[in-house]
């Protein structure tokens, strides 16, 4: 096709960036319209399906990112151990609450979990999975927390709408 000579450019850009690059940024650098970037990405992606290739493209919040194929994880793990340690049960529960009810205060999280969450919040902040997004207009003006784009890419989500669904069987209130 028209822009096939740019496939190598695209691959090199994704490689060099390391992080996700937005469609807009790619279009700007390659100096072609976004829809053509999209079709180039699709072509590059389908070239990579070949079993002799080890890489693939994932789409996460913020754009497109080059990474190794998931089926090769066992081999890669022999080389690098880049993944951060898993989140504790407490951290994962707290993160889930924030993801669904953001923006939310510490006190509101504690009502749901029934325990103090100061330390868990610090861990989540340190790992940049959540951030402070302002203060609630309430007594004491407590800090509001929300998830970050790192949160999305950590879980391979393009947006918050891809979060797992709350199970329908549980209605929050019997009276309803």
């Amino acid at each position: 096709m028209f822009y096939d000579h740019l496939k190598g450019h695209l691959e090199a850009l994704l490689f060099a960036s390391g992080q996700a690059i937005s469609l807009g940024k790619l279009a700007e650098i390659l100096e072609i319209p976004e829809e053509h970037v999209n079709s180039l990405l699709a072509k590059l992606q389908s070239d990579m399906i070949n079993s002799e290739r080890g890489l693939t493209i994932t789409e996460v919040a913020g754009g497109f990112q080059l990474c190794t194929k998931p089926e090769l994880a066992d081999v890669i793990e022999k080389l690098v151990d880049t993944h951060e340690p898993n989140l504790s049960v407490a951290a994962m529960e707290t993160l889930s609450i924030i993801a669904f009810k953001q923006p939310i205060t510490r006190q509101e999280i504690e009502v749901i979990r029934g325990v103090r969450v100061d330390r868990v919040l610090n861990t989540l902040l340190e790992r940049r999975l959540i951030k402070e997004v302002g203060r609630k207009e309430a007594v004491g003006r407590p800090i509001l927390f929300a998830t970050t784009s790192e949160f999305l890419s950590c879980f391979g989500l393009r947006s918050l709408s891809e979060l797992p669904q709350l199970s329908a069987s549980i209605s929050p209130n019997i009276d309803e």
Partner: protein
Amino acid sequence: MQEYSIKTDIFEGPLALLMHLINKNEIDIYDIPIAIITEQYLNYLQAMKEFNIDIASDFLVMAATLLQIKSRMLLPKSKPTEEEIEEDPRQELVDQLLEYRQYKEIAEKMRVLQEQRNRYFFRQPVLLPKRNPLPEGLTLNDLINAFAALWESTADQYAVVTREQISVQDKMADIMYILHKSNGKVDFSKTIFRSRSRSEVIACFLALLELMRLQRIKIEQDFLYSPIMIILRKEEA
């Protein structure tokens, strides 16, 4: 000891413990046998105590809540009034447990998502030097304005400070210093160089008078309104 450490891992909060008891006993969450659950809950706290584990206050608050619900359940039911059916004392707890359970389930799904994601490996970005284009569209005026803005703000500071700080003593030292640097003769106006404020001029005059009284200097003026010259006395030179 092995077992207790596993237990404290699981029950890191009273709600987690209650959920465990409900699941273990296969209890309908909408109809919790409060007496049984309360007993088991208290037994667990007792066991924690025997292992010398600090019981977080959250667990004690829940124990009190359970006991309160239990006692309300034991009270003879008053006839429901016409306005409303009496609320089940367990209702609030049930709501809380349901919401908590919902997020526990979500957390499990999130963990699966993360494990899937962990099978993808990324790489660090290539380190590229930052580009530093020179600013554009600046003129000499921008530079002068920036400097003038500073000058005004610092001038204010000096005004406040000098009124306090230019003492006659300082001014005497200034004048002697300048005289030594200027071969023993200097124009009076040259001795006013700090803030050029009225207070400096006054301090300067007083300093001159004092230096004359001490016979360190003498003053000459050729004619009216001509420059006042300050001259160091010979014995000082």
